[in-house]
């Protein structure tokens, strides 16, 4: 990746290298309510779900996904409270029902599957930004799950991808406000992964 250059000409600090999340993050990173940006059952909630696959087509049971998105009103400031804690017991309180933090975290299950519950992103940024972590993945990957949001304008990234590549970024609508978004780390129909400059 080409590092950004400062206009002052002062050299940038060299970054700390990434390392794999490994297999044993499961008791540390996932938290109760992590996959639910909004309370389950809220009528305007959507479910984004899918499976993470490796290069042989096998599901990956030890991947961790994070999703970040704009608020439905278009703002990107987020809000604290994704891991809201009880100051008395130290336990997890669950999110405040009226605060949308924009962030979800979910570990894949034994079948490589995941599901998150959130609100549809705005037409100005009709996607969930996704970070993928896994044992075997030395540096996490970024991708996007685009949702078929009303009024979404032509998207520069989608517009320049060949149709079969573009398809890997499109969440497919199903019944009951669900959208399927699979992640293929390698091989046939490999997901388009992003580098941000």
């Amino acid at each position: 990746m080409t590092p950004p250059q400062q206009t002052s000409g002062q050299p940038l600090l060299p970054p700390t290298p990434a390392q794999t999340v490994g297999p044993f993050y499961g008791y540390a990173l996932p938290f109760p309510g992590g996959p639910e940006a909004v309370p389950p059952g809220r009528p305007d909630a959507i479910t984004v779900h899918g499976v993470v696959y490796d290069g042989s087509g096998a599901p990956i049971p030890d991947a961790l996904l994070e999703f970040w998105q704009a608020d439905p009103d278009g703002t990107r400031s987020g809000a604290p409270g994704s891991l809201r804690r009880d100051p008395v017991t130290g336990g997890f309180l669950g999110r405040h029902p009226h605060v949308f933090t924009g962030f979800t975290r979910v570990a894949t299950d034994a079948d490589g599957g995941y599901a998150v519950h959130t609100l549809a992103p705005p037409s100005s940024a009709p996607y969930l930004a996704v970070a993928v972590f896994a044992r075997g993945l030395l540096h996490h990957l970024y991708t996007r799950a685009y949702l078929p949001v009303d009024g979404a304008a032509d998207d520069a990234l989608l517009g320049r991808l060949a149709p079969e590549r573009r398809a890997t970024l499109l969440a497919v609508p199903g019944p009951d406000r669900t959208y399927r978004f699979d992640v293929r780390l390698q091989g046939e129909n490999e997901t388009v992964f992003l580098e941000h400059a």
Partner: protein
Amino acid sequence: MGDPTQELISKEIAEARDGYAAARAGGAPEGHHPDRGYLPYRSSALRHPHNPLERVADPDAVELSGPVFGVTDVTDWDADLTAQHVGEPLGERITVTGQVLDRAGRPVRGQLVEIWQANASGRYAHQRDRHPAPLDPNFTGAGRCLTDDEGRYTFTTVKPGAYPWRNHVNAWRPAHIHFSLFGAAFTQRLVTQMYFPGDPLFAYDPILQSVTDDAARQRLVAAYDHDLSVPEFSLGYRWDIVLDGPTATWIEEGRA
């Protein structure tokens, strides 16, 4: 075909490092991060993309902002991994602290830092860790804190043990603490591992060696700092962290 030997893995590690040195001599840029496809780390074989990454340089990208965390998301107990149970954990008590900066040297303030680690015997509190070393009922090994106004984090914990794994015959991980960091943007997200100075296992470990640039690899190793050692209590280690990646403020300031 049996499991690979350390000899084979070490040969592959040397080849990857020589390949990087040759590329550098030919004018290739410094590689700060590991290659996702790194032969000596066998689990990477089927878990990295073959297509080049698609470059996004969009000033409106959602990834240039990121999730925020606050005092609602952590408790005072979270940063002291030795105080999460009734008794004291076994092992050498340590204090780990450092400053989180962006590449321009600005402190990353009020952001979430998460750690997890094996106990002093090299065993994770995880059902799938089959290493027959003892669990410690007084140690879970997970912690969180927010960086302060100078970007600093501090944890009290115990020094984790080395542990065996299945990459190859006689594979052992050097002692390490896993770190997860959020910056000012989703593009600054970092998951990494901190190592302890002078560990004899460094040369044998394909995960550490996946960082083929010598200077970059050295940045994963904490420094023992006697001034951070707390009398009658803990040994001190300092590990500063620099987050990569652009942010919205970076672009506003004309640095894109």
